[in-house]
């Protein structure tokens, strides 16, 4: 028998009525025996939700680190590697250290611009045959691309001829001219193979663009210009 029925009968001063007590007890039992089935909406409200992290964990797929995190990892690994290399070099024997220093010095030497150009010019200059001057004397007439007129070139040729004859140091001047004009004419040498005309054109473009002519004119006159073009002839000869 439920306590509700007892309380109700006590409040109404009918606690002794057993028939009524039995009736009210039956009423309660009849109406509360059926347990309703909750709807889907209500069941969803009462069912525990699985946390998102657990679902991710069961899937077993970890998130890939971000780009910044990966960059930081790579940078830190590189720094650690450099530090380890430095420490290893410091801890090595003096002979190893000197070898490393020599290697570093050699690499630094290769990257010096003046050093590379000077070496290149000297070796080329030594290989130039002297007979190429004549070819460049002939080709120098077709070098108006430096902005000067035909009259200027003609006067320059006349001046060169006089200086060639007068200057006892023409060979050395030509050599200095080669040194300055060589760097440009070298690239055009292979293109000029087969004919003097094409070779002269190539040398005209390279030699005029640089200060080979003007230098030659200042220091040794036309010989320096010839020397610059003679380098092309030398390249031409070696290619053949």
């Amino acid at each position: 028998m439920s306590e509700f029925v007892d309380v109700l009968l006590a409040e109404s001063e009918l606690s002794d009525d057993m028939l009524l007590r039995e009736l009210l007890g039956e009423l309660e039992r009849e109406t509360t025996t059926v347990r309703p089935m909750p709807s889907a909406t209500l069941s969803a409200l009462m069912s525990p939700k699985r946390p998102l992290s657990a679902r991710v964990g069961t899937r077993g797929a970890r998130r890939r680190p971000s780009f910044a995190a990966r960059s930081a990892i790579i940078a830190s690994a590189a720094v650690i590697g450099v530090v380890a290399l430095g420490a290893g070099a410091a801890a090595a024997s003096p002979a190893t250290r000197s070898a490393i220093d020599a290697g570093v010095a050699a690499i630094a030497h290769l990257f010096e611009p003046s050093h590379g150009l000077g070496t290149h010019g000297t070796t080329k200059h030594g290989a130039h045959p002297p007979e190429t001057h004549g070819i460049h004397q002939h080709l120098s007439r077709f070098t108006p691309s430096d902005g000067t007129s035909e009259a200027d070139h003609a006067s320059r040729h006349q001046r060169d001829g006089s200086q060639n004859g007068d200057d006892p140091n023409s060979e050395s001047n030509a050599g200095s001219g080669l040194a300055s004009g060589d760097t440009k004419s070298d690239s055009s040498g292979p293109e000029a193979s087969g004919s003097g005309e094409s070779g002269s054109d190539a040398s005209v473009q390279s030699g005029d663009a640089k200060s080979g002519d003007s230098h030659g004119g200042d220091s040794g006159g036309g010989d320096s210009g010839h020397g610059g073009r003679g380098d092309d002839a030398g390249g031409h000869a070696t290619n053949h």
Partner: protein
Amino acid sequence: MLRDPSAHRGTSMERFTAAYRELAPRVLGYLRSHGVDDPEAATDDVFLALHRRFDSIEGGDAGVRTLTFSIAHARLVDFHRAQARRPMQVPFETHEDPRRSASAEEVAISMVGGPATALLAHLGSAQQEVISLRVIAGLSLEETAQVMDRSVGSVKQLQRRALESMRSLLAKETIDV
């Protein structure tokens, strides 16, 4: 007394589940005893409405119980008002039915609605309401008065008259049998 609907201390969802398990059969019985045609759907509506306000309920377990049956009472009033607006339904006449074996519905109704429930139907609506809230819902006198929006004295008077009517009806049935 009614077992504590939120005796299972824990999260809001756990307390709501405990309240549903404890109170849902009583809400269903309360709605069915008052003739609601789909008491299970109405019970679901009651608890869905309760869930929306469950976290803001004050008064502990008694507050949960009172609010639950207040919502159920409101649904019951709405149902009766809607019934009044609908055309009258003709009851099913069993003697015109050619079937002789009991249908599943009849068996279920006979299991649910017994003689005590039928006796309750002979009472007036206010007396019926008081008895169902006191016995089926398990509310106290004050809670019943709060749900019915009446004074405690009025509810006590209705309760006494209802019990006297039931006793007289029961005595009459006993004499008839």
